[in-house]
């Protein structure tokens, strides 16, 4: 039997993103030496929302990029190759504070591969991680978020379904599905 419960609707998502943006500004001040990097495929939608909010709060354009981690995955030998998506990081990350943005943190392997990818654009001063949903107790490697929208307890067979307006859905909704 499948049980579907809502983690976020549009209003709650907006409030949470608002809070995350203020936390980011508290730590990164005017973002003069900080950049945001969204992970493909869905992290880029949150990057876009967070960037727009911070831009309006700071009244300036902050630097950002998008990263596809396909070429850095560690399951290349066991899985079907996912089709690589666009990477666009039009700056060097040397000595910069980098904030990785993704939708869901599960095993931590995607974030590990993202850090490998980011290192190809220079040596950052610091890397932080922002996720909207942190699935606690399911990590394969020791990676924890610096900023988090919500922490939830899940088991491996659970699934997080992210439906965003940017993906063509009528309303923003993020669900946890227990199977």
């Amino acid at each position: 039997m499948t049980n579907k419960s809502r983690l976020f609707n549009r209003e709650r998502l907006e409030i949470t993103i608002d809070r995350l943006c203020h936390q980011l500004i508290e730590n990164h001040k005017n973002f003069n030496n900080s950049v945001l990097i969204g992970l493909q495929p869905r992290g880029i939608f949150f990057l876009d929302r967070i960037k727009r909010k911070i831009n309006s709060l700071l009244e300036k354009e902050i630097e950002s990029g998008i990263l596809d981690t396909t070429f850095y995955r560690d399951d290349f030998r066991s899985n079907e190759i996912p089709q690589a998506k666009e990477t666009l990081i039009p700056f060097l990350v040397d000595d910069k504070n980098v904030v990785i943005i993704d939708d869901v943190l599960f095993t931590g392997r995607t974030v590990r591969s993202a850090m490998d990818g980011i290192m190809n654009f220079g040596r950052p001063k610091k890397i932080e991680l922002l996720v909207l949903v942190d699935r606690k107790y399911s990590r394969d490697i020791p990676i924890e978020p610096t900023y988090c929208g919500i922490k939830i307890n899940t088991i491996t067979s659970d699934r997080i379904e992210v439906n965003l307006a940017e993906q063509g859905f009528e309303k923003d909704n993020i669900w946890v599905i227990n199977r």
Partner: protein
Amino acid sequence: MEQLLSKDLLGIKNLKLDEINFIFDTADKFKEVLQRPIKKVPSLRHMTIANVFFENSTRTKLSFELAQKRLSADVINFSSSMSSVKKGESLLDTINNILVMKVDMIVMRHPDPGAPHFVAKNINKSVINAGDGTHEHPTQALLDCYTIKEKLGEIKNKKIAIIGDISHSRVAISNIYALQKLGAKVMLCGPSTLIPKHISSLNVHIENDIKNALKWCDVANVLRIQLERQGNNNFPSLREYGLYYGINKKLLEKIKKDIIIMHPGPINRGVEISSDVADSKNSLVLDQVENGVAIRMAVMYLLSQKNI
């Protein structure tokens, strides 16, 4: 499309249009990787690839090797002139001896048409044809088409003239297949002694006058006169070939049309193409070489899934 259909890349003839576009999409991503400060990804760190060359090569071999290293694969190079082939070892014995050392993929160039096809049938690892005699050179055609697409936005309905020594050219055959699959119109131009008799069955225009070919085309892909493969006297002298079929600035000015110039290399400067054309702003010769690495990375990356 999620993966290529065959375990091998032996030619363009049997490649589907979707597969060509899939390779191009993947090459786009690798082209971006090649612009990064660190131009290397760990995708094929679990693989060992052998470059088995029974015929000389400079840029193809370098390009494949660089692509393999950018993908973090281990690479071994085999050259027939320095091997036991000289002592009479058969092709399959040579390949099997390489494979038993835990090699996962073979990139092969051979003077005999069909040699990579024979090897591919007899082993379960991927084989990439890096040129088999006068038959096919698929990665060259892919990088040529990719370069045209990058420059012109699309290939459909574009007019491409392949000029020069068609008879001895594997690049020409692979290009004809690839360009036609992508919707281009193809013309072959050269002295009739260098155009194969039945090539018109491939639905290409034939032209012997280079001025007409240049007036017709958007892109001129100029082929090298393959001096090493000229058995009979197909033309009186290189000088005469250069006079009738050589492309120089003066000739292009007479045509009064912006034509993109391509050449798979190595260039016989002053024979099929003059230096002022090879080095002009309309020349994509160096773009072709640059794109070659991204295309070969894409092909090996996509075929590597067949070796899991």
